C-alpha cells in the first residue's frame, strides 16, 4: 500500500489516510486538547505526508514511526507558531474526583477527558510517550523512533508517566480485569 501510495496511487493514498487519520487525529487531540486545532494540525500532517512520501525509505523506519514523526514535528511547529496565544492552565497535583463513589469510578472505563486532565501535570516528555503509546498504540520501538529517543529512555518515561498517573488518579487497586 505504501509503495503504491508513493507512486501517487489515489486508492492507496486513500487507504493510508483511512488507516492513519483516526490515530493521528487522536494524537493531535490529546496533545492540543482542542478539536479545531487537532483538525487543523491533522490536515497539515497529511499535506506534509504528500510532500514527503516520495522520500520515504523502509530501511530508515517503519511507516507508522515515519508518519508519526511528521505528525510530531508538525505539532511542534504548530505549537511554536501559536505559542504566544496558547494558555496552558497548570493544574494542581491533586485532581478533584468527579465521581461520588470511588467504586463507581473504578468500574468505569477511563475517559479521554479524565486522562487529559490528569496528564496535564506530567512533564512534556512523559506526556508525549503516554499519548503515543496509549492513545495512538505505537510500540516502544516506534515511539522511540517518532520522538528521536532511545528505547530505554522511552521505557523509563513510560514507567514514570504511568506511576505518576496512578498516584494522581488515586487508584492503587484498579479494577481486576480478567483478559
Amino acid at each position, binding site marked *: 500500500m505504501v509503495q503504491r501510495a508513493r507512486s501517487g496511487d489515489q486508492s492507496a493514498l486513500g487507504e493510508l*489516510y483511512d488507516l492513519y487519520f483516526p490515530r493521528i487525529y487522536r494524537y493531535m487531540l490529546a496533545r492540543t486538547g482542542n*478539536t479545531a486545532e487537532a483538525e487543523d494540525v491533522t490536515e497539515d500532517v497529511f499535506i506534509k505526508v504528500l510532500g514527503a512520501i516520495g522520500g520515504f525509505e523502509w530501511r530508515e523506519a517503519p511507516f507508522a514511526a515515519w508518519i508519526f514523526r511528521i505528525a510530531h514535528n508538525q505539532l511542534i511547529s504548530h505549537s511554536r507558531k501559536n505559542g504566544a496565544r496558547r494558555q496552558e492552565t497548570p493544574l494542581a497535583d491533586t485532581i478533584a474526583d468527579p465521581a461520588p463513589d470511588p467504586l463507581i469510578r473504578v468500574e468505569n472505563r477511563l475517559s479521554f477527558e479524565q486522562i487529559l486532565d490528569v496528564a496535564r501535570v506530567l512533564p512534556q516528555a512523559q506526556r508525549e510517550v503516554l499519548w503515543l503509546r496509549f492513545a495512538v498504540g505505537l510500540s516502544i520501538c516506534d515511539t522511540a523512533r517518532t520522538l528521536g529517543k532511545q528505547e530505554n529512555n522511552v521505557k523509563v518515561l513510560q514507567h514514570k508517566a504511568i506511576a505518576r498517573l496512578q498516584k494522581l488518579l488515586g487508584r492503587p487497586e484498579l479494577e481486576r480485569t480478567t483478559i
Partner: protein
Amino acid sequence: MKQRFEDVLAECLEAVNTGRFTIEECLARYPHWDDRLEPLLRLGYQLSQASFPEADSTFRETARERFLAAAQAGAVAPQQRRKLLPALHMPRRWSWRPVLSAPMGRPVAWRRVALTMAAALLLGCIGFSSFAVVSAGDSLPGDWQYPVKRLTERTRLAFTFGDNARRDYRISLAQERLHEVQQLASGEHQIDESVLRQLVDSTEPLVKALEPDSVPTDQIQRITDLTAEQKVTLDRVGPLVEAKAADELAQAKVVSSEGYDKAVVALAAARAEGPEETPGLTTPATGTPSASAGTASPTPGSSPGAAASSSPTPQAGASATPTPQPTPVPGAATPAPAEPTPLPGEPTPAAPEPTATPTPPERPVTFLPDDTTAGLKWNLLTIGDFSVRAPADGSPDWAISTLSGANGDRILVGHFQSGGFDASITVQVSTGQASIRVLVQGTIQEVTAEDVRTLVPGPVADVILHVLESIHAGP
C-alpha cells in the same frame, strides 16, 4: 544481568496490549515484581482501552477529499514525481540497455527518448500544477482546485513573518472564507457545516487575540468590519444552510456577534488612546454598518486582503434621510465613541516619520434629487478627484460598500437576491476601472457592459449601467 523494572513493565504492557498474555500471566512470570507491577500494568491496560473521541465524520470526509484532491493536483514531493519517471532513474545494473541497444547499435537512443518523454511529462506536471495554483484563487469549497487554494494559503502563511503581517494575512483569510460563503449564496449553492466551520475557525482566533494594546487599530478596524459583515451575511444565508449544519450556523453567528462586540470595544479603546495607527496603513474610509443595518458585503470578486475594510454610506435599508448638501462621511467606522483624529488642543503624538500618515481625502456624499434612474434615489459619492453615482438609502435590495485593501479603495454597488448578490459593479477609486459581475446559470461571472442588458433584468441593468456611466476618475 539484573532486569530493570522499566523493561519488565514495557514488556508486559506490550504483551498484554497485543493479547499475547493476560495480566495474570505476566504477573506470574515476574512474581518478585508482583506488587509493584500489578497496579501499573492494570492502569496501562486501562489507558490503552480508554475511550477517545473520534473526529467529526464530516470533517474527516472533507479533509480526505482535500487530501486526495491535493495529491491529484500535484501537491506531491519532487521525489514522488521522480519515482513516477523510472526512465530517469533506471539503475545501471538493469539489463534494459544491452537488450535494447544491441539491435539498434546506438546505446544512447533509448535513454534519449526516455529523457525527452520524461522532460515533456515533467513540464506537463509543472504546467498543470501552475495552472491548478493560479486557477485555485477563485475556487470555492467543493471545487477541485479548492484544496490547492487552501494549501497555497497555508504556504503563504508559513512564509509570512512578524506578528502584524501574520495577523494581517489571517484577517484576509477570514475575509476570504466570508467571501466564499457569499459566493456560494450568490450561486444559491447549499452551505454545509464545513464551510461554516472554516468561517468560525478563521475568525475565532482573531477575536480571541484581540487586545487594543497589542493589535494595531487598523487591524481592529478590519476585524470589526469582518465580523459586522459576517453577522449580516449569516443572517441572510440561513435558507441555504443545510439542516444538519444548523449548529454550525448558530455557532458562527455567536462567534461573529461576540467578535463584533469585542472588536467594537477594542476599537473604541484603541481610539481613545490616540491616533497610533501604523504609518502607511489605510484609515477606515466610511462607516461600518451596524449588524442590523444589514447592507455591507464585500464584492464577490474581491481578493483576499482586499475585502471589507470599511463600509457603506448610503445603504439600502438605512434609516437616515438623504441630505441635499454634501455630507462628509463619518470617519468612525463603528459605533466607537472616540475619533481617530486628535481633538483640538490635544498634544499630537510625536511621529517618527512626519510624512508617514497620509491625510485621507474628503469623502462627501451628495444627494441628487433630479436623478431617478430605475425609480431609485441617487447619491454622488466623492473621494478626492473620484466620483460615482450610487443608489441612496431607501433603495431596496441594493447595497453600497467602500472596500479598502492592498490595491486601494473600491466602491461596490451590489444587488441582493436570495441571500447574495446576483449583480454587482466594483469600481477602483484610483483608476475608475469597473468590474461587473452577474449571476449566470448559478455562477458569478465577470461580464462586459454590453452583455449586462441581456443577462440581468431591466431595472437592475439600468442601475449597473448608470453607475458605470457616472464614473469620474482623475481631475
